[in-house]
């Protein structure tokens, strides 16, 4: 397997504060990888160690097949959470300058910047100073700055922050396209529904340690409860082996008693000649997994 990023047992402390205690993960080429965690979990510190902004106290990082080098910086796009652009200069000049630092020629930088300015509907604002743009526009400008040089690896911190639904969709489309082109994306965010929609694999960290790590579908299955979601035509007949029933989006969420399987419920429904419109194993969404995991950890 070709890993773009391999972080092994990263540890980082600032004085008495343990920002990252033990984080290990790998990011595969061409995937969108979600880095999740509550505030102060150590996500940003982990990203900064990956980018070699500072060294870990212990542990190792391999990025694009080895340690970070100056040459590799041009193959990486990084967007920190909030701000990060020169406020006092024109948007276009700011983007062209930062693109030139990534090793782009003036002509390439100009044409690709123009392309993305149009794509993200910022072309008419390119002569405005960055500080004159709205928060959402600045966020889109940050995204352009991150991807304009066609990096192999993109690391984005809260990419959808401040974006309206239309722009969120545009950015998502761009991320899908980049993934199709083989670009690897590491995304740190709190927006779980975006993670569910975009990410192939995730790492949830809390208190600077791995909590959940792996492919998203496997994680959801792992966390699925002993329950089924059922929707039938007409009124639901009495079913045995059900612990409790709650309504969820028009369907009924049946939590089963321990020795009853979903197959037993299905057999009962078919046996009573019910027309079944929906029958599925209930899997929790990422929000629920996130909250449950963090709470369980706190209780533990």
């Amino acid at each position, binding site marked *: 397997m070709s890993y773009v990023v391999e972080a092994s047992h990263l540890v980082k402390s600032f004085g008495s504060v343990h920002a990252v205690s033990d984080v290990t993960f790998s990011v595969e080429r061409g995937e969108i990888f979600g880095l999740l965690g509550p505030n102060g979990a150590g996500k940003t510190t982990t990203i900064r160690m990956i980018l070699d902004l500072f*060294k870990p106290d212990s542990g190792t990082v391999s990025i694009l097949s080895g340690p970070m080098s100056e040459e590799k*910086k041009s193959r990486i796009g990084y967007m*920190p959470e909030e701000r990060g*652009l*020169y406020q006092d*200069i024109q948007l276009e000049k700011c983007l062209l300058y*930062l693109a*030139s630092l990534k090793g782009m020629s003036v002509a390439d930088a100009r044409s690709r910047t123009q392309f993305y300015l149009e794509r993200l509907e910022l072309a008419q604002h390119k002569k405005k100073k960055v500080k004159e743009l709205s928060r959402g526009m600045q966020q889109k400008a940050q995204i352009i700055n991150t991807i304009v040089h066609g990096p192999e690896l993109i690391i984005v911190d809260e990419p959808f922050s401040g974006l309206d639904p239309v722009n969120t969709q545009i950015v998502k489309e761009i991320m899908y396209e980049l993934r199709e082109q083989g670009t690897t994306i590491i995304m740190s965010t709190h927006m779980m529904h975006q993670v569910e929609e975009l990410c192939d694999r995730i790492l949830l960290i809390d208190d600077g340690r791995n909590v959940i790590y792996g492919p998203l579908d496997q994680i959801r299955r792992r966390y699925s409860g002993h329950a089924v979601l059922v929707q039938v035509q007409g009124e639901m007949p009495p079913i045995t082996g059900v612990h409790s029933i709650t309504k969820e989006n028009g369907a009924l969420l049946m939590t089963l008693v321990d020795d009853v399987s979903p197959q037993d419920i299905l057999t009962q429904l078919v046996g009573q000649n019910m027309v079944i419109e929906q029958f599925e194993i209930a899997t929790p969404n990422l929000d629920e997994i996130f909250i449950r995991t963090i709470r369980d950890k706190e209780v533990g």
Partner: protein
Amino acid sequence: MSKIWLIARHHFQKETRKKSFLFILLSMPFFLLFSIGLGILFESLANDRMNVGYVDPGAFLRQTTLDDADEDIQLIAFPDEEKARLALDGNEIKAYYLLPADYPESIEIDLVYRDESDGRATSLMRRLVKLNLLAGQSPEVADRLMFGADVTVFATDANREYPEGGPEAGLFLPIIVALVFGFLTMTTSGYMLQVMVEEKENRTMEIVISSVSPSQMMSGKIVGALGIAFVQLTVWACFFLIGLWVSRSVMDVAWLQEVKPVYLDLVKVAAVALPAYLFMAAIMTLIGATLVDTQEAEQVGPLAFLVILIPLFLIVPIAANPNGALAVILTLVPVTSVLTVALRSIFIVVPTWQVLASCFISLVSAGIAVWLAGKAFRLSLLRYGQRIKLSELLSRHSSKSLSAS
């Protein structure tokens, strides 16, 4: 294109396109113009033409003109005091001198005036009397008695010589160079501090060092600042030279004619100034990396100017012993070196080894400051909004946790 150059060009263009830069650029020539104008005004006021009378019934003053006499003073002879008094009352003359008929014996002259004379007329009268008293002496004796001995002071321990009256105006030129350096450093310091703090505040630095190394970023900023300083210096020098030429050659300002630059002193001050400037730029980058907000940065710029002026506050001990320990130490310390070398140059020829040592110390210190700035910058990334202490910068722990730039 080198990334250092790209960063330098960016900062150069960003700063030189500001209105405030144009204001600073033109403020110095306007100040110069104002100073020269003031000088010309004072000179023209001092050179007021005036008529002065004299009454010489004994006909002592046989020779009534001097070769180098002040052309603005017109001496008018009156046959008697009554007529001189009438002329004074009628404002035809400012004053009149009354030589008694037995002047050679009495050697007393009365001066009658309405408003106090400015001294030029009395000086002229003294010299005229002296000239007439010396009539009949050999030209050598007369010349010596008229003009006195031609003494040149030569200080063997200082390797400097100047006329009896003290240092010539040209010897003070290095101080002007040093003050320009101070002004330049103050503006650069303000700029560097502001850039560093702003980029930290809006986290642009984090973006930049995901593209370049911290040392490349710091070096680019310093080279950019050097470029800005070069433009300022060039423009100021052009205005200065044009002003000097106009004043000396076109307007014929007398005191400027006497200014003779000592080029070796100027070269020495310039040689010390360049690395000292680099050091100041680097140290401001370091301070900028440790500060939290732009308000703090605005306070540090003028403080840098005050530190540069320390030798001026110590001018008495430096002048008393320009080769003493204090003067030598201040020459070797990067921030005080430029003004100290300029001040010492008035009294002595500053030894070349001290100039070279000062350059070396400034350059090494600048290198250390850039290195520390890189560390401070990385530490500041860990702790946005918190000030960084010097002890943290120098501690082994911080160096261990930060990657080499």
